[in-house]
């Protein structure tokens, strides 16, 4: 049997519950997330794209005089530790001709000195960690034996790479 009093009570109860719902769902606190990712950064550039070296003189009785160029430099940024700079050329030098490179070490690093370049990478600088420096001198040297004879002009692409030690 329909009871108006109970019906009214149920209706009021329902309204009361509904009136509570919004504050039950929301609240005085909210949360957002801030995320930032730092990727590995290993950047190296050189100050000039080309260097020319010519061996064209000798002291009588001695091997031809090497040509040296120290006009270029490199800049490096790395946010990783245990890095090194390797060097290589795209094709090997002809017999009796040697192209060497020596890189000044950035702070904390160790230069490998003048090293002959070939298609196999050599370690020009080791022990590099989290730094950014500019103006580090690159010294190229071209040497030739008398037995190499006259060598026609050629270009080599030198690749310097920052990589894991």
């Amino acid at each position, binding site marked *: 049997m329909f009871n108006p009093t109970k019906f009214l009570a149920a209706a009021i109860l329902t309204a*009361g519950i509904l009136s509570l719902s919004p504050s039950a769902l929301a609240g005085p606190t909210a949360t*957002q997330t801030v995320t*930032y990712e730092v990727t590995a950064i290993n950047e190296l550039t050189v100050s000039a794209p080309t260097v020319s070296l010519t061996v064209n003189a000798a002291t009588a009785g001695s091997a031809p005089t090497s040509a040296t160029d120290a006009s270029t430099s490199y800049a490096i940024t790395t946010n990783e530790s245990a890095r090194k700079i390797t060097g290589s050329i795209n094709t090997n030098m002809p017999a009796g001709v040697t192209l060497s490179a020596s890189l000044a070490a950035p702070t904390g690093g160790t230069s490998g000195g003048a090293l002959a370049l070939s298609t196999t990478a050599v370690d020009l600088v080791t022990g590099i960690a989290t730094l950014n420096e*500019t103006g580090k001198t690159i010294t190229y040297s071209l040497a030739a034996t008398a037995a190499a004879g006259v060598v026609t002009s050629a270009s080599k692409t030198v690749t310097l790479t920052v990589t894991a030690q």
Partner: protein
Amino acid sequence: MKTLFRNILSLLALSSTDHAADLVSNGDWAETITASNLVSGAGSNLQSQLQSMAGVTALTISNAPGSWTLRARRSGGPWSGAVSLFVKRTSAGSGSGSIAGGDSFVEVTGSDVEIFNGSEARSNVALQFKLTGLSVGVSPASYLSSIVFTVQ
């Protein structure tokens, strides 16, 4: 019947009791820092500061019976100790209430700090974040933190 009415009265009393304002937020901020963030390429350091776009996060305050203060804190990690997070308000939003303060960057730390204050309801209050202390000394990794906003 008495019990029923007692329950009804209790619920009605609860529903009319003053309560803290409600707060809803929308919009996370995520950034990836790469070599493109170097000041001037190889040899340079990372830009020390990085800002989100204005309004990356929006807050809505509702059911506020009177004046309120909005606070924020960082929670969780991992987070680089060299990096600081700041937030500021870039819009007043809209609504019947008022809003003041927070239009300069405020550092968000592990403790609640006031960002701005106001009264009654405000919708879509825009926020902007800023990171400082970035450098190549910050190890490559993913860092995150929850930003807990509280309105009281």
